[in-house]
């Protein structure tokens, strides 16, 4: 179900505003991910990418307003980005277009506004205002590490350059003003969300965007994901149920605290979330952190097939078994759920997850696939086929330009619960696009991450 169908011809243009290192790209990228996950056609038009075509590794003075060449190139880049966005609205059934640029002067914003209004679109300005130095410092480092502008450039030089770029921008920075800009639609985040000003929101979709953005924080943090330890049902190849952990599953539960401890920096605060089913709670039982239990994290409900093996399902409900393989995302078990249903019930979880700092989520295969798909932007048709093995701790680190993944193997054997398309036998996938991204490390290795 698309939240908005093209029938409505709805268009929203989000214009980012803010100095460098204020998390603009991170917010833009997260918005794209979130709205796409909800089946709303969204695209980010990053002026930086258009500009980079002209000038691959520009130094800070390129951004000086006095530098005419730089000014012209940036101006052209913005115009190109807007042009492409408008075309995408018309020809690509675009619903939400995001213009990722700094747009720090009132004059610049008025220019963008004018172009948009000439095309009958009232843009929504989204400003990230931040004067918390600690936060800015962390963002600067993030840009240096992940921005294409600083690829293969020395760290010291890069950081110096970003800081210089910021100070040049600061000279001409005009924040959105409640009085002067009272006729504009805008959302202004002040120091992440100490204060949020939301002005003249005119449509439901805009309100949804504002809602999401106010739940974001741009503080660096980790999200830890794990399936429950191997369960009795896993041993028997059965799906669903509410079984206890197997002996090896308990081993994983006992090892989990030291795994987390080893890879969590500076013993930061951590919250553990589990489902209401026994196997996830048992898996988390040795962890010395505050815990929350969520019904919404329960495994995909297999309805009448709950408690069966895939072989039994294939035999008993051959049509269903085939139908599910054909469209695993949409297929809803008799009396149960589909992956789409799971995404709908997970939405509040995602929202709260965006809200929290470090969190470890112990849940189930299908639910993990949906959460992983959200963070890694895995397409809907592919996500139900992702291979997420047992006894592996996954660490996600959302960064400005991408999410970094590290997988930590607990080195405790477990059965495979992966079922390839077209078979009822279990076994790990042989296809590359079904495996997770990122580095795989073994917990016994001494490599630091």
């Amino acid at each position, binding site marked *: 179900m698309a939240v908005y169908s093209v029938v409505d011809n709805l268009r929203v243009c989000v214009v980012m505003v803010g100095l460098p290192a204020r998390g603009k790209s991170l917010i833009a990228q997260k918005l794209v991910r979130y709205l796409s996950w909800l089946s709303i056609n969204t695209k980010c038009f990053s002026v930086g990418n258009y500009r980079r075509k002209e000038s691959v590794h520009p130094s800070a003075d390129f951004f000086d307003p006095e530098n005419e060449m730089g000014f012209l190139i940036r101006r052209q880049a913005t115009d190109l980005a807007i042009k492409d966005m408008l075309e995408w609205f018309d020809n690509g059934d675009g619903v939400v277009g995001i213009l990722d640029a700094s747009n720090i002067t009132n004059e610049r914003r008025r220019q963008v506004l004018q172009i948009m209004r000439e095309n009958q679109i*009232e843009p929504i300005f989204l400003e990230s205002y931040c004067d918390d130095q600690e936060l800015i410092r962390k963002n600067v480092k993030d840009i240096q590490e992940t921005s294409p502008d600083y690829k293969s450039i020395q760290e010291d030089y890069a950081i110096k350059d970003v800081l210089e770029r910021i100070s040049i921008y600061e000279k001409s920075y005009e924040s959105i003003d409640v009085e002067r800009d009272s006729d504009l639609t805008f959302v202004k985040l002040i120091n992440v969300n100490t204060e949020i000003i939301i002005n003249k929101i005119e449509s439901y979709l805009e309100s949804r965007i504002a809602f999401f953005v106010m739940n974001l924080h741009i503080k660096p943090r980790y999200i830890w994901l794990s399936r429950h330890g191997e369960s009795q049902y896993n041993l028997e190849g059965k799906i669903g149920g509410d079984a206890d952990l197997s002996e090896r599953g308990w081993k994983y539960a006992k090892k989990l605290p030291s795994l987390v401890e080893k890879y969590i920096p500076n013993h930061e605060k951590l919250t553990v979330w589990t489902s209401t089913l026994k196997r996830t709670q048992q898996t988390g039982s040795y962890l010395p952190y505050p815990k929350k239990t969520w019904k919404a994290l329960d495994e995909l409900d297999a309805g009448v097939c709950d408690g069966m093996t895939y072989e039994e399902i294939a035999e008993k409900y051959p049509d269903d078994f085939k139908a599910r393989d054909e469209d695993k995302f949409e297929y809803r078990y008799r009396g149960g759920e589909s992956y789409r249903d799971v995404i709908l019930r997970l939405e509040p979880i995602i929202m709260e997850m965006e809200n929290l700092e470090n969190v470890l989520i112990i849940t189930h295969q299908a639910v993990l696939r949906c959460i992983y798909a959200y963070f890694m932007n895995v397409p809907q048709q592919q996500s139900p086929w992702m291979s997420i093995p047992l006894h592996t701790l996954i660490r996600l680190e959302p960064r400005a330009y991408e999410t970094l993944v590290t997988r930590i193997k607990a080195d405790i054997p477990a059965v495979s619960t992966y079922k390839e398309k077209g078979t009822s036998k279990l076994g790990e996938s042989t296809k590359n696009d079904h495996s997770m991204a990122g580095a795989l490390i073994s917990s016994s290795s001494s490599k630091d991450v």
Partner: protein
Amino acid sequence: MTEEIQEPVIPGNYSARKQTRWEKLDTVKGKKAVHLDGIHDSVDSTYISPGQLYSTESGRMFHAGQVCVCICGQPARGKTNLSISLCRYLRWLGLKSNLFHMGNYRRAKTGTITDDFFKPVPDTEEAFKMRKELTESCVQDMKAFFQGDHGQVAIYDAVNAISKERVELVERMKLYGIRVLFIESLVTDDNLLRANIQDASKSPDYQNWDSKQAVEDYKKRVEMVAPHYQEMNEPSLSYVKFINFGERLIVKNSNHDFLTSKIVFFLMNSKIKRGSVYMARCSNNKLSFKSDPPLTEAGREYSQKVMKTVLGHISKFKGENFYHNVQRPKIEATKRQPAYGVDGQHENSLVVWTSVRRRTVEAAQMFKDLGITTRHRQQLTQLNPGDAEGLTLEELKEKFPHDYEEHLADPYHHRYPRAESYHDLAVKVEPLLFEMERMRGDVLIIADETVLRVLYGYLMACHSYDIPTLKFPENEVIQITYNAYTNTATRIPVEGLEQTED
């Protein structure tokens, strides 16, 4: 597939879902011409809300703990309206919420109430004492609601003018382990304020008053409070400033609290609703879910009658051809553009919503021909009956004996194989609820009975057990009007159709 549905051997999610979630209500609402909504009924301990996505062991959602939402603002700032619509939404979301209107406590108090009482800092000892007393009994009731009735959100609707008293409330609630979130309603637009004073002078306080006198008296009350009112600016408190009924929102110290952001989400969409929601059945409801035939001649005649009834009814208030006034002129590029693709911004507008099914799209064409905006929403497609389609109760009982039992116990959440439940439908239509809230004009929804039930259930705060059996006969159009205090549903007979007896 004729395979019989079997119960799993080992209990799992399936069994958990099967459990009866509430006791059956034995009250059956009679068929009356006008219904008041259920928003002022207290919620009982077995309450499960229509839109609830999941529940937790404690019966509370989001692990958000317990929250007192304290509404502040001078008189005529739409506080009561705001608290009621917020309560409606929070309950629908699954948070056990109740309203605590200071005005009700005051009205329940016997004896005369002097003007002095309305001053945030009364002159006389007597009025001062009475204020304290009333506040105390309200706080006590909230405490009982939190501690005895497993309440999650108490909405405290009072002027709350004095900063010191607000801080005291926070400290007091803290003793009971309850967080306080303030929502301050501010109006900086004089026109809005004037309109609102007109509205407020129709409150229960002014029953049997001459309307002019009521306005004068209310104005006096507004003026009395104004010099004492201290705008919120407390650095230690969490608050939301709700300015000009949602034109601007300022959120302070939300601390990434999920409930706060959900409330802000609602507030962004909550306009003072002036128009009505009309609901009409679409023609030919006996069709199979998968079929999608064009409109029949009988369907065309029926749709024309519905159109005549609705347009005739609205014309009585807004004048003939009222919809001609809303054609959206092209706005110059120097001016604010109306939100792209967003309808219902004009008070005289009528927007017709139907599903994407052919016969409803064709029925809407008649409205379109008159220049009325029509929209087709996927979410308004009837409930998918799945494998239960076309089966009589007897056949269902025979074919799906187990499901049949389950359905009886929980008709709202249960789905037959491959079917959608009412709950699925409710979750699906949530975006439409918000759009409905945003519209300033009228909206006519032509849809299947199953969809109307869910929408009606939200607007009239129905218990989810009642929703699957709500009746919407073809010979009636339902009008739901928003009021500050309560929504009202009126049944309008469709002209030229035989009416059934009560």
